[in-house]
């Protein structure tokens, strides 16, 4: 096993309990969604429910209300991937892991275990990137798998096109990659876990509310493209199986810029004493 793989495995092992708990919560949250849809009467019963949703709640879906109604069950289920609870659980898992793996290890001095050996900073950093990608993959898969499992418990299982969970998971992965990249940048520059988490959470919360309020108030529309969530569209993925190229490229580039920026910062910085 190479040093990078060894370090990645160690980071995941250390964070294992917390990550598994959050992944289980993500799975359970998405598993419940089809059950709720069935309790509301399936595709037919959802329409009056969706029409009754207040605008502030419909803004969470980032989709025009009529479109949600027209999309029926898939439109309703897509709400599960833009719901603040889902995004919070996934972000806590990802940001917490990355912040502890880099800033946390610098804060505790644990990173010296590797850096006192013939291992370059770029390899130490690469282990954190690998860990981040694996956590992002697990989170991106957990939601759709939970929802598929939930559908299995209902009579709605034949109403949905399962292939569309692939682009839905991909949309999630791209969002998590971007969040992970920005968190790596913050963690590379920070001396403590707290500062890294504060930076990443700050960026994410601002990004979320820019997108949310731009959906509610037309005057904020010009700033919407500055939000990560403007490029995250699980509704389109789950209802039509589409993943816009612009969204893919933007999130890929944001994640890449954050990751490379973090590498440059980490390679040049002093370790905290």
């Amino acid at each position, binding site marked *: *096993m190479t*040093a990078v793989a*060894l*370090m990645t495995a*160690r980071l995941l*092992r*250390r964070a294992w309990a917390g990550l598994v708990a959050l992944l289980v919560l993500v799975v359970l949250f998405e598993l419940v969604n089809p059950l709720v849809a069935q309790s509301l009467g399936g595709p037919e019963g959802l329409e009056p429910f969706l029409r009754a949703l207040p605008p502030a709640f419909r803004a969470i879906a980032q989709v025009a209300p009529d479109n949600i109604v027209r999309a029926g069950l898939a439109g309703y289920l897509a709400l599960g991937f833009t719901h603040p609870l889902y995004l919070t659980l996934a972000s806590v898992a990802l940001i917490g892991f990355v912040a502890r793996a880099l800033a946390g290890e610098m804060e*505790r*001095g*644990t990173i*010296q*275990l*590797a*850096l*006192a*050996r*013939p*291992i*370059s*900073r770029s390899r130490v950093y690469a282990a954190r990137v690998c860990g981040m990608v694996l956590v992002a993959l697990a989170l991106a898969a957990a939601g759709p798998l939970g929802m598929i499992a939930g559908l299995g418990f209902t009579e709605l299982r034949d109403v949905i096109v399962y292939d569309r969970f692939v682009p839905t998971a991909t949309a999630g992965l791209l969002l998590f990659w971007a969040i992970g990249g920005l968190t790596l940048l913050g963690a590379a520059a920070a001396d403590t876990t707290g500062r890294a988490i504060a930076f990443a959470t700050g960026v994410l919360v601002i990004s979320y509310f820019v997108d949310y309020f731009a959906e509610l108030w037309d005057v904020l529309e010009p700033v919407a493209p500055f939000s990560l969530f403007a490029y995250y569209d699980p509704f389109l993925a789950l209802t039509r199986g589409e993943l816009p190229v612009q969204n893919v490229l933007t999130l890929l580039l944001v994640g890449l810029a954050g990751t490379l920026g973090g590498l440059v910062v980490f390679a*040049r910085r*002093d*370790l905290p*004493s």
Partner: protein
Amino acid sequence: MIQARGLSKRYGEVLALADLDLDVPAGIVYGFLGPNGAGKTTAIRCLLGFVKPSAGSAAILGHDTWRDGVNARRDLGYLVPPDAFYPDMTGHAQLDYLARLSGKPPALRAAMLDALELGDDALGRRIGAYSKGMKQKLALVAAFQHDPALLILDEPTDGLDPLIQRAFEDILRELRDRGRTIFMSSHDLAEVERTCERVAVVRGGRLIAEETVAGLTRRNRRIARVVFAADPPPDLVLVPHVAVVEHVGRRVELAVERDVNPLLRFLAQHEVAELSLSPPSLEDVFLAFYGDGAAEDGADGGAAAVAANGRAGAGSRR
């Protein structure tokens, strides 16, 4: 083995390390001394590539520690702070993990565990449950286990009981005899005196002395206690390098700077009932360097230290 040229490190306004020149030859135990905040740890962090020098450079086996850190650390063992270990790992798992990262077999692990009395029972427990002393032992095993050519140890015996400290000193001597180089900082001056051949003394981020332990102690003052057969001769105060510290009846306590021969020649001309000459200890030297309570941190303190060094180096006790 280790070479530093003009090595400096500034943290904002604070000059933690100033213009350090150091040459540590292979095959010796080298002490790196100084009070808290003197710049020892900063120098060690520069050697390990943990911080980037603000000026100057350091090299290990010819490899620059910042630009070519991987090669500089290729055959190095470093004593990590005891709290740096993963608390969820067992001692065994931690040592295995570090051996794999080092890329060298843990040839010295069994001998180190035996010498430091760290048994299988302890190694099977999570490190989070270790005492400070056990973590320090584990850190020592981790640093030594792959038998590196150079060991950099920051306060290696901190938290160890006296018996283990002595066992550790034996290990250092054994490794030195096998050609290994040990660069260590310590507050335990008696330990440094017992184990180190050469020492560097830093203060205020600056090097203020660098020589063999024997040379350093030799140039410090000694205390001579003389009991004359009759009243002490009045011209005793005229003897070069000698100052009377205490005079009670026929008994005189003298401070002898550097050279004792003028005193011995003087005493040979008189009837002496008793004579004792205490050798200066490294602690005396250390106190001579730092005993004036001057500021220790930063460039200003360092400048003061350099000025003070002229006096201390000449053997004056202040």
